[in-house]
């Protein structure tokens, strides 16, 4: 390494010696507190309530899904019996025209 290069590098590395601490803006604490207050205001309900509501919703969905899976035949039976009634009583429309003479 050239002596001048060595000197230059050492000068760069030593440039932070005796560094004075910089200070943030005097209004920063107020900004932080304002952010904290506004975020607290954004949450009128507690986190616990949110979790309880979410859990209740999930339970409701699961129960509905389970019930729907357990009773699919009922719907089919109802549809079948309705079709029987329709065919037995000849409830088919004679024409597609409404109020036909």
């Amino acid at each position, binding site marked *: 390494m050239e002596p001048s*290069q060595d000197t230059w590098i050492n000068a760069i590395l030593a*440039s932070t010696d005796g560094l004075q601490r*910089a200070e943030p803006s005097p209004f920063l604490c107020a900004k*932080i507190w304002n*952010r904290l207050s506004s975020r607290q205001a954004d949450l009128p309900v507690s986190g616990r309530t949110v979790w309880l509501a979410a859990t209740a919703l999930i339970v409701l969905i699961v129960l509905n899904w389970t019930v729907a899976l357990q009773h699919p035949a009922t719907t089919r039976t109802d549809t079948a019996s309705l079709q029987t009634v329709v065919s037995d009583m000849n409830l088919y429309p004679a024409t597609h025209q409404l109020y036909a003479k």
Partner: protein
Amino acid sequence: MYDLADLSPLLSTIGRGDEAAFRTLYDQTRSQVFNTALSYVRQREDAEEITQDVYIEVFRSAGAFRGEASATTWLYQITVRKSLDWLRHQKRQKRFAFLTNLFDTNTGAILHYPADFGHPGIVLEQQENAAILFAAVNHLPDKQKTAYILARVEGLNNIETAEVMSISVGAVESLLTRATENLKKRLAMQYKTLNHP
């Protein structure tokens, strides 16, 4: 540690939402938090943003502070993590900027930060050299960068640095040696470019 009184009692008071305790903690530690963040991001406004994020996290999680490490170590850990997250976010933003445009859509400000950075705590005649140093530090791997900033810029001793980084003192020494070697290599290249363009 770091000439600060034990802040643990303050944290438990802050955990109960005490604003006065929060302001006391802020007044006692703002300089450490802000200067550490400034060394990473090299922009005053960004360092202030990080400082805000750090204290918001401190306020939110003060109640959960168990005192395994000292309060100042904990504060430094949050600052380092937030600063590194900020740098990663900046890097992602820079990559994306090449695909979109080079300027902020709202302000029109350039998204790519200039290499020259005048640290407000450095005497005027050293500003240029310090800008070169901070630009070189910015190229170090994250762990070397953190060790260098905490030990060489913030002035923590190796034991304190090891506590903040949750590694051994030996590992800190090794990181500092490698960081200094890497900085010397980069600066040597820069010297050649400057003198033989």
